[in-house]
């Protein structure tokens, strides 16, 4: 199947938002999606964007059953390791089910790695749900290491009320 991978534009945000929701359904957390294409447009295409995005497109004659030609995306941002330096974090990688098995996911992943390399990033990081065996296998096959298993790293979060409480206890300037 022919496909291209290109940088997303502001106009792609509606499609990206659609696919974000599809990915959340796959991850069994569809009620967790709180942002829409408007936030994506604001946060990804401003002066200092919070993220960058790539989209995978197929030609019109291969469009999806519902008529979409944008069939996959990768959303990522730059991070920093105080041990190794510049890194890139892959927040989302998604290909619509009917387009899987054609190398599109790999194409998107490799493009993110290439973009990161140009910025001298030495790591590509992401997180995967423990039950998601096909995805874990996909990344393991590409040389990804599971740091939770091998080194014991756990991801911790403050949000909602716990985040507000923390803020209220911040020292005054």
């Amino acid at each position, binding site marked *: 199947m022919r496909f291209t991978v290109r940088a997303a534009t502001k106009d792609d945000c509606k499609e990206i938002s659609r696919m974000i929701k599809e990915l959340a359904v796959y991850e069994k957390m569809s009620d967790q999606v709180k942002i829409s294409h408007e936030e994506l447009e604001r946060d990804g295409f401003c002066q200092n964007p919070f993220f960058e995005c790539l989209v995978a497109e197929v030609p019109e004659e291969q469009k999806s059953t519902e008529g979409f030609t944008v069939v996959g995306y990768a959303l990522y941002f*730059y991070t920093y390791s105080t041990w190794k330096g510049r890194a890139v974090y892959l927040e989302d990688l998604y290909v619509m089910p009917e387009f899987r098995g054609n190398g599109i996911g790999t194409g998107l992943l490799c493009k993110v790695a290439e973009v990161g390399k140009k910025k001298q990033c030495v790591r590509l990081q992401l997180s995967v749900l423990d039950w998601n065996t096909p995805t874990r296998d996909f990344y393991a096959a590409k040389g990804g290491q599971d740091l939770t298993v091998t080194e014991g790293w756990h991801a*911790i979060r*403050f949000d909602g009320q716990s985040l*507000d409480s923390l803020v209220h206890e911040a020292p005054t300037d």
Partner: protein
Amino acid sequence: MMDFSIRPANVEDCKDIARMIRDLAEYEEMSDLVKITQRDLEQDGFSKNPFYHGIIAEVSDQHRSQDGHTKIGYALYFYSYSSWIGRAIYMEDLYVMQEFRGNGIGKALMSKVAQLGLAAGCNQLNFTVLDWNKSSMDFYFSHGCFNITTKLGYHCMRCEGEALENLAQP
């Protein structure tokens, strides 16, 4: 209670940040993994599009450390993004020199990161902790966070070195 202040890091702080990064790595039993230099920190944190931001905890000269340091803690963070909830903040490092612990400095640094994040419109503060690091886990959980690895099953994955080079082939 010891007097201390917290302020944004500037480029002159990079020498002390590099020192404390190595101290923290030693505490985490991974000191041989630190490849970054003071110069990397200067370039990556204080250019037009910085890769990170830092805050420093300082004490007055009369409270300086046994080795003569007044910069005795730091937090290093950057902005991230959740495709579900939008803007977020990631705390890469939080560290207070051992002799200054127990004075609320770590808590103050973390709260400051949370405050800066909220001011920038962030809805989450995320970071990672090693599973054996009980004192750090206890510290964080006492302030109301939750473990998304044990509760939701998220595993942290990484590609680097040769595997990353292979991926990056055009």
